[in-house]
């Protein structure tokens, strides 16, 4: 009986909160707000805030065409694998204070899980047999590699700072990081962590593939790259994964740098987290989208491996010397 009950609870976690349903609503709303704000910045009226939901449900009702050259199984399975990985990350990220799943190396697991949606897209794209997808996936790989280095440096510097305080060397556990912040105040307030926080904010648009770092799915240039052959429900799932990714990465920022501000009530915490995510999205995704033009892939790579990595490295060095 107890097993049935606990598995039902876990199913609830996965499907409703903080799993699929919560991610779905939060991701869609954040994307909608992003589109609206970009429109306002370009002096347009802009779409309704629920527009991504309309897009998603419309795509669910469309015909799904499978190209003759495609590998059917991989083509259809890839979007679902990507979405599943994206939802699992959300279980690891504490809603301000308590995560559902936790262990000793959450951050490393998250680093790997963040790769899966992008890899799924690469597999799906290459299975579709389109030359546009070929161009798109080669660029996507470069984007992944470009964003990975600063992200690892950021995670290391946070792990070192918390680990120093806990006396464990490196601390990759997000629940420990949350506990440390609840006791000592947010990491954002620590002088040595400010460069890492800035670097993380610069990494977010690159990881989500937003303007100006969307060379991999430049719609005006290579027909959305890997998605060129997708239609109907699989395309809708990819759009949903993208929307959730924006929310996940901003939530990860909140967990890493703005922890310890919770009230203890889960629903209220979720609202606070969502509000902070919206503010971060507006400033670091919408504003950047509205004022910049698309970067070439080599410019993107250079930017992340020099400027952003250097900023993250400052934090790591400071953390290593115990500051």
């Amino acid at each position, binding site marked *: 009986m107890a097993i049935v009950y606990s598995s039902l609870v876990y199913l609830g976690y996965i499907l409703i909160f903080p799993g699929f349903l919560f991610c779905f609503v939060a991701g869609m709303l954040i994307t909608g707000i992003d*589109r609206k704000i970009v*429109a306002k910045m*370009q*002096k*347009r*009226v*802009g*779409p*309704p805030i629920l*527009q991504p*939901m*309309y*897009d*998603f*449900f*419309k795509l*669910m*009702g*469309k*015909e*799904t*065409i499978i190209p003759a050259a495609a590998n059917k199984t991989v083509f259809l399975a890839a979007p679902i694998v990507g979405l599943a990985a994206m939802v699992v990350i959300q279980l690891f990220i504490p809603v301000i204070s308590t995560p559902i799943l936790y262990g000793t190396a959450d951050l490393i697991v998250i680093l790997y899980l963040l790769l899966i949606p992008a890899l799924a897209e690469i597999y799906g794209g290459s299975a579709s047999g389109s030359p*546009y997808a070929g161009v798109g996936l080669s660029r996507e790989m470069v984007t992944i590699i470009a964003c990975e280095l600063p992200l690892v440096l950021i995670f290391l510097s946070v792990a070192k700072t918390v680990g120093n305080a806990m006396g464990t060397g490196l601390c990759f556990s997000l629940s420990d990081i949350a506990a440390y912040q609840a006791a000592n105040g947010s990491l954002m307030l620590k002088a040595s962590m400010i460069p890492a926080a800035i670097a993380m904010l610069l990494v977010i648009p690159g990881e989500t593939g937003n303007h100006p770092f969307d060379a991999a799915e430049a*719609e*005006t240039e*290579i*027909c*959305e790259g890997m*998605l*060129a*052959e*997708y*239609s*109907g429900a699989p*395309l809708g799932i990819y759009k949903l994964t993208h929307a959730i990714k924006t929310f996940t990465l901003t939530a990860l920022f909140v967990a890493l740098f703005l922890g310890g501000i919770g009230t203890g009530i889960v629903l209220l915490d979720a609202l606070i987290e969502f509000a902070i995510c919206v503010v971060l999205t507006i400033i670091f995704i919408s504003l950047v989208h509205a004022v910049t033009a698309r970067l070439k892939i080599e410019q993107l790579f250079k930017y992340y491996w020099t400027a952003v990595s250097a900023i993250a490295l400052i934090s790591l060095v400071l953390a290593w010397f115990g500051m």
Partner: protein
Amino acid sequence: MFKNLITESTAKSPWLFHINSGSCNGCDIELVAVLTPRYDAERFGFKLAGSPRHADIVVVSGPLTQQSLPRTLRAISQVPEPRCIVTIGSCPQSGNVFKGSYSVMAPLSKYVHVDVAVAGCTPKPEAIMDGLVQATEILKEKRKAWLEAKKNGLKDGPKAETEQEVPAAEDVPASGEEVQQ
């Protein structure tokens, strides 16, 4: 449960795919004007899609030259159902000033079912917008008809409007070859 939601969403999120079939660029500019800040079609959910597979509404401009006709039809047939075809300008309707030329194959309605035709040379952005909004209503009707047919036992829904045989791109004589009238 989701059926009504999907039907409602179909009219609210139409993505456009634009085909220029030998247009003089006049209508294309007007379509761009529809999408840019002054008229901002995005407030109705319109978005320009890069690939025909993502589109709901196919916008065709130009008098359908002999070279572009098979490609236009091929692109249209790649758009998933339910789809709408909107022509902009007088060219795809009648051939306009190019009518009678050996290389002009207009009207488009000879080859596929055209849902909305916006006339004018060039039509005003307001007229194009009106045509596109009408097309969203037709999209919704098509979705409803598809659901109805599914209920009545047709497994794959009604076949799309009876399409004429699409001439393959290879059938079109290469430029320079003599064309038999």
